[in-house]
């Protein structure tokens, strides 16, 4: 049955309309989770507020498990679902640059739009920065292309990479997430902050 648009159950235009509704759900959940606040987001890096870690990893393991169950029930053909490509160096260097942007800016792209939606002026400035950053990449593309294209590994799943089943992989990630949740609850008690 799924993915609906790939299997032509719905048209391309319906797909775009559903993107809007999926976006509404995404924005609503992010804002309800507290992701419209930069001080809350940055809190995870100092231990005073670990909501990012909790929401992010609960989201990731729910999505992993959900897709595995959907596949098991025959609701979605995982071979038709896009798996992000792995270009080793650009992924790592890009991630390091994004990490620096995160701790300085207090937002990531999705959360900045969420913060802007409820009136955070720092989020608007962050978004202006995003546009400048993407434009810089576009203009510097020829210079960055060797790094951008280096060490292309295809689209391996982490389960394939380590040669273990998808179920066991997800179980390991869930156990790691539970350990992090335990650590996060402990850190919040250790580094309390007043409400902001």
């Amino acid at each position, binding site marked *: 049955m799924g*993915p609906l648009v790939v299997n032509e159950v719905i048209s391309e235009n319906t797909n*775009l309309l*559903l993107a809007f509704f*999926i*976006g*509404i*759900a995404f*924005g*609503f959940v*992010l*804002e*309800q*989770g507290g992701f*419209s*606040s930069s001080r809350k987001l940055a809190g995870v*890096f100092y231990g*005073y507020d670990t909501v990012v870690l*909790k*929401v*992010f990893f*609960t*989201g*990731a393991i729910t999505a992993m*498990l*959900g*897709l595995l169950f959907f596949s098991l029930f025959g609701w979605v053909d995982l071979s038709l679902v896009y*798996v*992000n*490509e792995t270009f080793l160096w*650009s992924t790592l*260097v*890009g*991630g*390091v640059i*994004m*990490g*620096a942007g*995160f701790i*300085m800016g*207090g*937002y990531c*792209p999705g959360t900045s739009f969420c913060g802007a*939606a409820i009136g*955070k*002026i*720092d989020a608007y*400035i*962050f978004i202006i920065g*995003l*546009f*400048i*950053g993407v434009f810089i*990449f*576009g203009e510097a*593309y*020829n210079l960055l292309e060797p790094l*951008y294209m280096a060490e292309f*590994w295809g689209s391996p*799943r982490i389960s394939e990479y380590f040669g273990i089943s998808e179920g066991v*992989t997800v179980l390991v990630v869930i156990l790691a997430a539970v350990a992090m949740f335990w650590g996060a609850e402990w850190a919040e008690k250790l580094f309390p902050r007043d409400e902001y």
Partner: protein
Amino acid sequence: MNPYLAGVLLGLVVVAANFVSGRGLGASGAVKSAIVAGVETIAPKHADASPFYHKYSEAHQGKPLNNWLVYQMLGVVVGGFFSGVISRRLTWKVEHNPGIKSKTRLIFALAGGILFGLGSQLGRGCTSGSALSGMAVLSLGGFLSMAAIFGTAFMLAYFFRKLWI
């Protein structure tokens, strides 16, 4: 909202995106769409000369804004606003640690945004598109992206502590 509940709902949104469209969520991709459309409109010859712009535009039949992530991000703004309304959080403000000036916060917000924009293009997606959605489909790249983003932010946290604590 309880963060674990919010996380479960977030995960279900990712599942819904994959079920409907065979792809995950994203945010920086919509910014890229806007930049490509802008450069094409203002400087079409320049856009044609750079593979970054024209490859993307070709992949979208010459309409870079008619893109899944653009519609999804419009939804994010609507959904975020709606959530702010019902939780009574709509207010214009610069949020920062009382120990620093608003201006300092805004300068770092701009710098952080520039870095995040640049890094998201190099890394082929941001926290939503590469890390969260990549991990959801068990992509090795998604896990590496998550580790690099959060790992770096943790390592640099000490140097930027005045901004936040």
